[in-house]
């Protein structure tokens, strides 16, 4: 896919094609990620939104190659990072990518940090391994990183253990660890879900600032549409392992097409709503990923579904009259109808 271009010239930092991840369970193969494709331009943030079971976390782990032993990815899947296909790489080669090139921040900082290792050492570790820094230099860098992520008195705190810090602080440390080797791509998997709302805003601000200062590309995975609204350039909405709608963030919210996206948005209570507003709900449950229903996977729960929806799977493609806005729906929201 390189056509003789160097990494610096690639317009896309990440290109995912036909990605399919299955898990072997006692009931059969569970298709957690089903035929996902997207391109991520350099320096941008893509939000991946979905509820539990949508496959968003599995997607990020598949990109990183961090899947458990009962997982299988299809052979014709491509994960092209700066022109190189990660799927073709050996584990040893991938280990050199993780850290210096692609880094990840996880949801729960208490379990993503080693409880018996000082935080300074955890930040320094990857610098020593990947960048070959001396212990002293790595430690000084760690202190600077702690300062950068907003931890006061970093010279003192660098020798503390995770349990001595609050949840928000720990997540800052996790971000420092991720940034330590100056990665090109940062994947943040529900980085603020476990945090209080005031801390959440601070952490998201921090991530945004770091991304801009370091010219990084970021994938922000969350279940919260509010989080993606203000902080992403593009959004992909996932449902039952598939991307069902994908667009520029503004376009997605203003020209929503997919019924699921609409239902998701309408079921969130908003501060501006009057009290006791009846929330719109999406009845039923997400489909069984071992044997998903035929046709559109959202059809069983969709008020607008008809026979066609339960028989044929709608194709995922750019909508009429839209640029860069793809979705998969037989009866999408019509712009003239004006649902919002």
């Amino acid at each position, binding site marked *: 896919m390189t056509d003789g271009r160097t990494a610096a010239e690639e317009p896309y930092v990440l290109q995912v094609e036909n990605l399919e991840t299955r898990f072997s369970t006692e009931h059969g193969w569970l298709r957690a990620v089903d035929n996902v494709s997207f391109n991520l331009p350099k320096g941008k943030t893509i939000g991946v939104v979905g509820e539990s079971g949508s496959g968003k976390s599995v997607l990020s782990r598949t990109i990183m190659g961090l899947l458990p032993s009962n997982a299988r990815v299809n052979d014709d899947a491509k994960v092209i990072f700066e022109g190189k296909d990660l799927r073709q790489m050996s584990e040893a080669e991938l280990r050199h990518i993780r850290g210096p090139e692609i880094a990840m921040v996880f949801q729960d900082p208490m379990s993503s940090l080693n409880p018996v290792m000082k935080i300074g050492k955890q930040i320094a570790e990857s610098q020593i391994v990947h960048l070959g820094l001396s212990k002293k230099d790595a430690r000084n860098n760690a202190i600077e990183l702690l300062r950068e992520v907003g931890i006061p008195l970093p010279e003192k705190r660098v020798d503390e253990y995770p349990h001595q810090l609050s949840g928000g602080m720990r997540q800052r440390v996790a971000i420092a660890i991720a940034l330590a080797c100056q990665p090109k791509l940062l994947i943040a998997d529900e980085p603020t879900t476990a945090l209080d709302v005031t801390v959440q805003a601070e952490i998201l601000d921090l991530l945004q600032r770091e991304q801009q200062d370091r010219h990084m590309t970021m994938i922000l995975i969350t279940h919260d549409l509010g989080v993606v609204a203000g902080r992403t350039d593009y959004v992909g909405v996932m449902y039952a392992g598939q991307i069902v709608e994908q667009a520029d963030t503004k376009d997605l919210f203003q020209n929503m097409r997919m019924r699921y996206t609409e239902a998701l948005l309408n079921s969130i209570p908003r501060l501006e709503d009057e009290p006791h507003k009846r929330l719109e709900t999406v009845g*039923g449950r997400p489909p069984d990923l071992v044997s998903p229903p035929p046709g559109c996977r959202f059809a069983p729960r969709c008020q607008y579904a008809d026979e066609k929806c339960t028989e044929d799977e709608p194709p995922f493609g750019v909508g009429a009259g839209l640029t860069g806005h793809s979705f998969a729906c037989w009866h999408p929201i019509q712009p003239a109808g004006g649902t919002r």
Partner: protein
Amino acid sequence: MADTTSSGDIGGRKRRIKLGFGFWLPMSWVIFLFFCAATADFWPLPLPSEMHFLDQEMTPGHQSMAFINEEEVEFTFVLGTDNMGRDILARLIHGSRVSLMVGLVSPIIGLVIGGLLGMLAGYFRGRIEGIVVAVMDAVLAFPALVLLIALTFYLGPSLTTVTFSLGILTVPFFTRVARASTLTFAKREFVLAARAIGTSDFRIIVREILPNVFFPLLVYALLVTAALIIAEGVLGFLGLSVPPPTTSWGAMINDGRDYLEEAPHISLIPAAAMFLTVLSFNLLGDYIRSLGDPRESKL
């Protein structure tokens, strides 16, 4: 579309517990042992204590005359004879009674007493826990062998004594497992919900805690069974188990101790039987543990 009903679809497949090879293989040995123990008197074999002075230390397959059901007939000593000419197969079958008795009844003593104490300690915490833990620590600290000798002395050597003594020794272990398990479940919100209704502590322990604690205790009991069979074997070896003429596998091993060079089968055969039995209980315990709680994990 009814926006408050959860449209009928109660998911999760009902797990049908399929007992596979890993269960039936050890289980069939255990069942066979039970069968032997129950029918020991009806096998067409000489009495286990009957000595055949002409046929001492004979290897398996030896043929001679023997009294079977009070008739002297041609007989093949399938597993040979021991140093006193006793039929090893007959002794093995009769000895299985002791092993099974100890292996199954003793853990029950431990499970009931230890389980109860552990649940009380884990649920009430505070002083009750302190006392229970202290007493259990004391029992654990006491040298087991000394305790056994003392109990045997006072109660007289018999199958009941052995079963009871070994049972008592397992109580601290069951207490520990029960307490740890209870601590986990007592913290859960369904216990809080039960208290919120005003459910009595007794009822909570019986209806909420016990059904959850029972499974880990059962798994542990099977592993304890295996350990106790060995323990009885050791006691028999030391002559502290059931007195003769009752047969026990441990005593059989001891009998063959001096003949390991010329007639090793006297010790090895009961040892093999013990090995198979202990292995079976261990495998059963592990297998049942792996069946465990079917908690669905969301991807």
